[in-house]
């Protein structure tokens, strides 16, 4: 029975269902200290002095500061501007200054209260606009296609608008947590909740210089990441390690919810301006788009978020004349970072709402405007990429529209809304998106990812990759790919824990790349392993006994017999980093969604009644897991659209708890109808592309479009809170009177 295309049970499912799975806080470490972080109470300033209360008993407390970092005091990502621990400049509220440890967690927190930080406070820059005016730009990109002036001259109508999207908190149910200790042989071990063990490994090398084999990073069962544990663990791991080396004892740091929400990365807020030229029939002729993002106080991954943001800013539409300018600026707020979608949910909200606006201006249905311009095979993107294959855009749009009965439902909602006595307004909204799979441009080449398939001494087959299971199904789908490549049962495949001592660097578990890129490497490794075993006389498909026999012969000295593959950029993919032109991604996923909702006329609360979505993932390796990703991502997208409001006060999140930062419950999430569309990608394993982030891009504009149909209100800022709907209705009534 083939594994690919079968909804096999999650490999690590049983442990998660019985409480046997060990997350970092479930691990007890002999003699460990609880580590806690002293954080800046000013958004900007110069650190002068750290005063320890002499009346407090410090004898059981170990303290680590910047001075205790043996290597460079920098958390390596793209730049080295972020210190592990602040030593002079304070650039945001919650910036870490020192780590202290005590064997009793409550006493550790108590000790924090007895430290005074003396600093010269400075005026912080807290808004994107102010930062831009000051020229505090981390990165600027520009994409140009054709000639804008020509385009605008050609236009019948020009439509302009500005859109704003706020921070969003990943809200993984397991907070950040890491433990570190040094073994007797000098190996620094770091273990915890993370998405990218090799990112942590690289960062630790810079902080605690030693031979690479002397740093070992092991991922524990991770309770959600969504990007929030992509780069942030570099920081918390460094904290645990520096204290551990100082104390000569293991250290575990686990954040409570409030600290996690205040101090760790969030989705980049953005302001997106569209100026679009269209013909009367809806054809796009000119797109002039300006994207401004708030990076927070340090660069972290902002240039990459901005890059993906601008590469998706046009929406999935072909336009002959395009200019996208993107900038990400520095403000004195906690650095923003990766969150599922990584720049695309922000710019796609704007792009899709702008289609809605264009349609309204032209008196056309938004579906018609989309059909006029939607990508198809042969379309050329803003970077000049020709979409050669696996372009499911039309298909997903058609399926979503058909399955949801979009046009008749729209009419029914219009009829309902004409009834003055109706207790609610009803609306149907549509959105269509695309999402590039894998790293942008030359990113995958830069990563030089590697993955291995091995025959173990006992005859088992093992996958060795750095890709982490964070709930999305990594373990299961990599096993399925290898199982089918080898024509053996799914249950025969083991997947190694992501431990840098055991697995090669397959790159980070981000960017919807795990299945497509790492799965692709593993398929080739499996093919090589099979050829080698066949050369050794193993008949194919093999029996367990023949694999055991082969292992006895080939696993010399008890070492696995395996084949590693390294990423090679397909010749067909051409990209120029300087001009930002060419094939931005190897392939794109496509999704369309129809949302039907109801707005209560008394309370203006929005209830989403129905969600229908079609998503092109190339090939569903495990349909149940794909559906799970789509439904889960959609729920997060609905939260982004309607509920999740990060409130900043003087430079830090003011509602840093689940009571006041509201994520969807069972009753906020409707049942969803999901249709998986498969337009295979010739370079993806069994045709697969990426899945994880695509669902995040599409709900918010679909919801906003539905609210537009329901009420006539064109809302340009997320979240679409009842307060904003109420105010907009009130303002409109006021204008009309």
């Amino acid at each position, binding site marked *: 029975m083939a594994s690919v295309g079968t909804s096999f049970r999650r490999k690590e499912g049983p442990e998660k269902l019985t409480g046997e799975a060990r997350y970092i806080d479930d691990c007890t470490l002999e003699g460990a200290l609880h580590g806690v972080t002293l954080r800046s109470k000013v958004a900007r300033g110069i650190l002068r002095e750290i005063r320890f209360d002499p009346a407090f008993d410090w004898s059981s407390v170990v303290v680590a500061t910047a001075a205790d970092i043996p290597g460079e005091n920098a958390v390596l990502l793209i730049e080295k501007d972020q210190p592990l621990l602040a030593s002079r400049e304070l650039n945001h509220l919650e910036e870490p200054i020192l780590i202290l440890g005590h064997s009793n967690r*409550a006493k550790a927190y108590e000790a924090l209260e007895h430290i005074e930080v003396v600093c010269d406070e400075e005026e912080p820059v807290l808004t994107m606009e102010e930062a831009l005016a000051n020229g505090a730009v981390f990165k600027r990109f520009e994409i140009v296609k054709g000639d804008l002036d020509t385009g605008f001259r050609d236009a019948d109508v020009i439509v302009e608008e500005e859109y704003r999207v706020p921070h969003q908190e990943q809200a993984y149910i397991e907070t950040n947590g890491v433990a570190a200790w040094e073994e007797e042989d000098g190996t620094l071990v770091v273990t915890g909740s993370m998405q990218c063990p090799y990112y942590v490994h690289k960062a630790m090398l810079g902080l605690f210089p030693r031979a690479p084999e002397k740093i070992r990073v092991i991922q524990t069962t991770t309770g959600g990441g969504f990007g929030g544990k992509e780069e942030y663990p570099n920081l918390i791991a460094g904290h645990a390690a520096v204290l551990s080396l100082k104390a000569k004892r293991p250290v575990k740091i686990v954040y409570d919810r409030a600290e996690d929400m205040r101090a760790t990365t969030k989705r980049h807020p953005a302001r997106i301006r569209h100026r679009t030229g269209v013909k009367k029939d809806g054809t796009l002729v000119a797109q002039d788009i300006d994207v401004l993002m708030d990076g927070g106080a340090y660069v972290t991954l902002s240039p990459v978020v901005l890059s993906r943001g601008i590469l998706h800013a046009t929406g999935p539409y072909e336009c002959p004349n395009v200019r996208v300018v993107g900038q990400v600026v520095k403000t004195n707020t906690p650095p923003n970072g990766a969150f599922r979608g990584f720049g695309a949910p922000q710019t796609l909200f704007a792009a899709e709402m702008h289609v809605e606006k264009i349609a309204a201006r032209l008196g056309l249905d938004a579906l018609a405007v989309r059909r006029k311009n939607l990508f198809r095979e042969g379309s050329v993107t803003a970077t000049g990429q020709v979409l050669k294959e696996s372009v499911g855009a039309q298909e997903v749009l058609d399926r979503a529209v058909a399955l949801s009965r979009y046009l008749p439902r729209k009419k029914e909602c219009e009829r309902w809304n004409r009834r003055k006595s109706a207790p609610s307004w009803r609306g149907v909204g549509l959105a269509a998106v695309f999402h590039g799979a894998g790293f942008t441009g030359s990113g995958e080449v830069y990563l030089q990812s590697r993955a291995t398939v091995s025959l173990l001494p006992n005859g088992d087959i093992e996958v060795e990759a750095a890709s982490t299971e964070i709930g999305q199904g990594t373990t299961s789908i990599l096993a399925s790919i290898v199982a089918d490549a080898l024509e053996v049962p799914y249950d025969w495949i083991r997947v190694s824990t992501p431990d840098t001592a055991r697995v090669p660097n397959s790159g980070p578990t981000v960017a919807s790349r795990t299945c497509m890129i790492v799965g692709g490497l593993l398929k080739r490794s499996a093919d090589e392993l099979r050829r080698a075993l066949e050369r050794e006389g193993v008949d194919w498909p093999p029996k367990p006994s023949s694999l055991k026999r082969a292992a006895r012969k080939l696993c010399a000295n008890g070492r696995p017999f395996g084949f590693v593959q390294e990423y090679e950029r397909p010749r067909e993919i051409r990209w120029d980093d300087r001009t930002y032109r060419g094939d931005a991604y190897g392939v794109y996923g496509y999704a369309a969604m129809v949302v039907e909702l109801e707005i209560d006329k008394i309370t203006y609360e929005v209830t989403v009644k129905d969600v229908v979505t079609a998503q092109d993932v190339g090939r569903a390796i495990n349909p149940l897991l794909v559906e799970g990703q789509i439904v889960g991502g959609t729920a997060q997208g609905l939260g982004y659209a309607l509920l999740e409001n990060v409130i900043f006060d003087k430079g830090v999140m003011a509602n840093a708890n689940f*009571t006041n930062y509201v994520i969807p419950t*069972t009753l906020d999430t409707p049942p969803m109808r999901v249709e998986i569309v498969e337009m295979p990608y010739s370079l993806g394993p069994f045709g697969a592309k990426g899945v994880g982030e695509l669902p995040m891009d599409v709900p918010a504009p679909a919801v906003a479009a539905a609210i537009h149909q329901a009420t006539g209100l064109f809302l340009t800022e997320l979240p679409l809170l009842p307060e904003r709907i*109420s105010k907009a209705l009130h303002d409109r009534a006021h204008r009309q009177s």
Partner: protein
Amino acid sequence: MRGDPGSMTLLRPRSVEEALGLYAANPGAVPLAGGTDFMVAWNAGEANGRTILDLSRLGAWKRIAVTATGVRVGSLVTHRELQRHPLVRRRLPLLAQACGTIGGHQIQARGTLGGNIANASPAGDTFPPLAVYEARVRLRSAGESRTLPFLEVFTGVKKTALADGELIDSIEIDFPRRPTRESFRKVGTRAASAIAKTVAAGLLWLSSDGRIREVRFALGSMAPTVRRLHSVESLLAGKRPTSRLVEQAADLLENDVSPIDDLRSTRAYRLEVSRNLLRAFLSSGLTR
């Protein structure tokens, strides 16, 4: 988690008398019922070193007794128990409904009516129903007992009129004469497990000639404490509910409340929605 269990002193009386005696001797102690409010603060490290007066063993306060005129609810009755009680569901339906909207099921199973009142949050979901049912709160201390009308218990945000050494014994609620119309509605930050942005309860009695004999309407989360809309009630008494009168009532609502902008909502929204709730209550289905 910043609570330090080793720093706490726990007093665990076995009877009401013992509890009151211990409380008199330890006036700085924190009375603890179901813990759904206090433990949140404790987890955040805000109550280390305190003395706790654990009331959970006081069985006498866990009963719902039927009286000649209604019920007496022991202060330690949980919201879950109240919501399930057949008499409460039938005769005090607004209270039963409110008990079902407080937090999630896990909170309802632990949170107590007395604890909720003593915590005196402006957003207490059960408070508008208790206000329109005109509940009475019985207080006891080591020496004395007294009964306060429900609204007089609250003096400000998280502040009560309880004197030193006083605990809530029970809440007495008389069954109202069957109203012509009754309504409870909570407007939360999401569909479930949410804090109220505004929460309303209303009772209305019409005379046989179609005039409003009496109306009681209360709002929570609209002021430091729950409020009965006395101006509105006075305006409406004895009159026929025309649409013009309903509009007048809606305009008058602002006199009786003082909503604010906060992390959960805005003053403008709260007023708008509360007016809508009042209008809906007065306008629809007024005949039986």
